């Protein structure tokens, strides 16, 4: 007995060492490869959270499809939100390669056990919010996700290549809405500034807590799931975005924001991490509505999914009956 146990532990240590060396050499882990349980759990958590974010993220933007101000904008917005649903699908599928079922993952979202990106708990109040989401939220998402194209888990990395291509298109369309509005009538410019005021801080919080408070980061970096730290990515986003706001004549709502010529970076004011924690804990402006909308869609659709399943079963059994009869 003892010998057997010692043998298993040694085997495990050996596997772990080989796994870590394999990952360190930038090779991809595939679904059927051995992987440490903690690696699998981290990926399931991260990928399902990412999938839920895509799906919940459809709600604030979908909110404006019916009121898009031109038919072209309506078509673009429908195409964009549909892309987000597609991202949700790739990601749920990537998650299934780790041995979890999509329905179970969705149940965890509905029960509040699984999280999604807190940014979607903010409301979309005017048409420029659709521009701000594309420009800032998708912009921040790209910053977070481009490194994941090179992450160690093959299915996640590959899904992310396509997601990032689409997101970068979304970001440009968002910026284009902002640019049009900032250069439009006084009312349009006011809407654009209002949207930037409301989305700026939540967007820079999307990179997560400061590095010293990010408990899972070190292990994820060692496993090549995460490639850059939260603060590094946040800085990169700010450095890229502030000049874009300047270009279209909008003001970033941070009185302390200033360019540091020595470091070559912008310095920003303090981030209200209490607000971040409040929203993550479920007390943002729209947490309740977003989850209720998702639960309602799921519950209202139960009879449809049941019918599809029943029909598929009946069809399969009719087919096997006719095969038996033919034989």
């Amino acid at each position, binding site marked *: 007995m003892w010998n057997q146990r010692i043998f298993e532990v040694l085997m495990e240590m050996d596997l772990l060492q080989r796994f870590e060396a394999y990952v360190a050499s930038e090779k991809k882990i595939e679904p059927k490869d051995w992987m440490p349980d903690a690696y699998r759990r981290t990926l399931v958590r991260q990928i399902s959270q990412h999938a839920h974010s895509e799906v919940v993220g459809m709600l604030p933007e979908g909110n404006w499809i019916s009121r898009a*101000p031109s038919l072209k904008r309506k078509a673009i917005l*429908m195409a964009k939100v549909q892309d987000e649903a597609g991202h949700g699908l790739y990601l749920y599928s990537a998650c299934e390669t780790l041995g979890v079922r999509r329905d179970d993952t969705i149940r965890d979202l509905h029960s509040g056990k699984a999280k999604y990106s807190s940014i979607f708990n903010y409301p979309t109040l005017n048409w420029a919010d659709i521009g701000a989401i594309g420009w800032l939220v998708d912009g921040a998402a790209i910053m977070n996700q481009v490194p994941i194209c090179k992450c160690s888990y093959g299915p996640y990395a590959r899904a992310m290549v396509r997601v990032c291509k689409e997101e970068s298109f979304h970001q440009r369309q968002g910026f284009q809405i902002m640019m049009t509005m900032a250069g439009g009538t006084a009312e349009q410019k006011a809407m654009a500034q209002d949207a930037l005021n409301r989305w700026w801080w939540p967007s820079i919080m999307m990179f997560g807590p400061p590095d010293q408070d990010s408990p899972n980061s070190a292990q994820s970096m060692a496993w090549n799931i995460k490639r850059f730290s939260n603060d590094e990515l946040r800085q990169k986003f700010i450095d890229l975005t502030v000049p874009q706001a300047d270009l279209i004549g909008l003001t970033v709502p941070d009185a302390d924001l200033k360019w540091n010529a020595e470091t070559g970076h912008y310095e920003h004011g303090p981030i209200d991490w209490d607000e971040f924690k409040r929203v993550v804990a479920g007390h943002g402006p729209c947490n309740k509505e977003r989850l209720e909308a998702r639960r309602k869609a799921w519950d209202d659709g139960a009879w449809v999914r049941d019918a599809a399943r029943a029909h598929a079963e009946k069809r399969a059994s009719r087919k096997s009956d006719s095969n038996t009869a033919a034989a």
Partner: protein
Amino acid sequence: MNARFEYLLRLGDDALILGQQLGFWTGHGPVLEEDIALTNIGLDQIGQARAWLTLAGKTEETGRDEDHLAFFRDQSEFRNALLCERPNGHFGDTITRQFLFDAYAVALHAGLSTSLDPEIAAIARKSAKESAYHLRHSRAWMVRLGDGTEESRRKIQASVNDLMPYVGDLFHSDDVTREAVSAGWGTDPASLRHPWESTVAEALAEAGLDRPGPGPEQTGGREGKHTEQLSFLLAEMQVLPRTYPDASW
């Protein structure tokens, strides 16, 4: 009366109102695949609406473009069939509305593909590819829901019974359509009824659903006589351009 303008408005408004309604499903479908499918179909409808309304605007020659026609007309100026403005209801209601329309659209686009007007024929040929897919999707769901569970059968049968009285506008012939036929650029809506009937009858039979017997029909959309629902739908759709008429987006 500019018959070509009127005829094109009918085509454009059907697509526009359906597209507007399908957009409400985005994020709220019974399964993620259907969020994608319904949004995609809605997107096709909006694309078709843009093409027809742009052409209508050119025909009218008063400078109205697709957005002017979509956002600055009142409900009585809309020419969509009443079927298109029936509420989304539950998934089965939306699917049935779409199925009854798709069965018509496939026949319509096939007919218009041979229009003597090259612009109409071009839009119809592009739309025909889309409507064939739409019909495949909505028909498959009619069969799934009809054959699925007792509950789904009951629901989808009720949807069919509720919506069937609203199909009359689709086959409505009048001076506009007669001119379209005699000039060779349009189809006679009445001639589409037969192929529509056979598509519908075949699908309902496969789904195990009853075809409600012929009864009184609700019509009037082609003359701008609508149901109560349309004004609400337009109020929401038109709010931004109407509130800020000087803005461009």
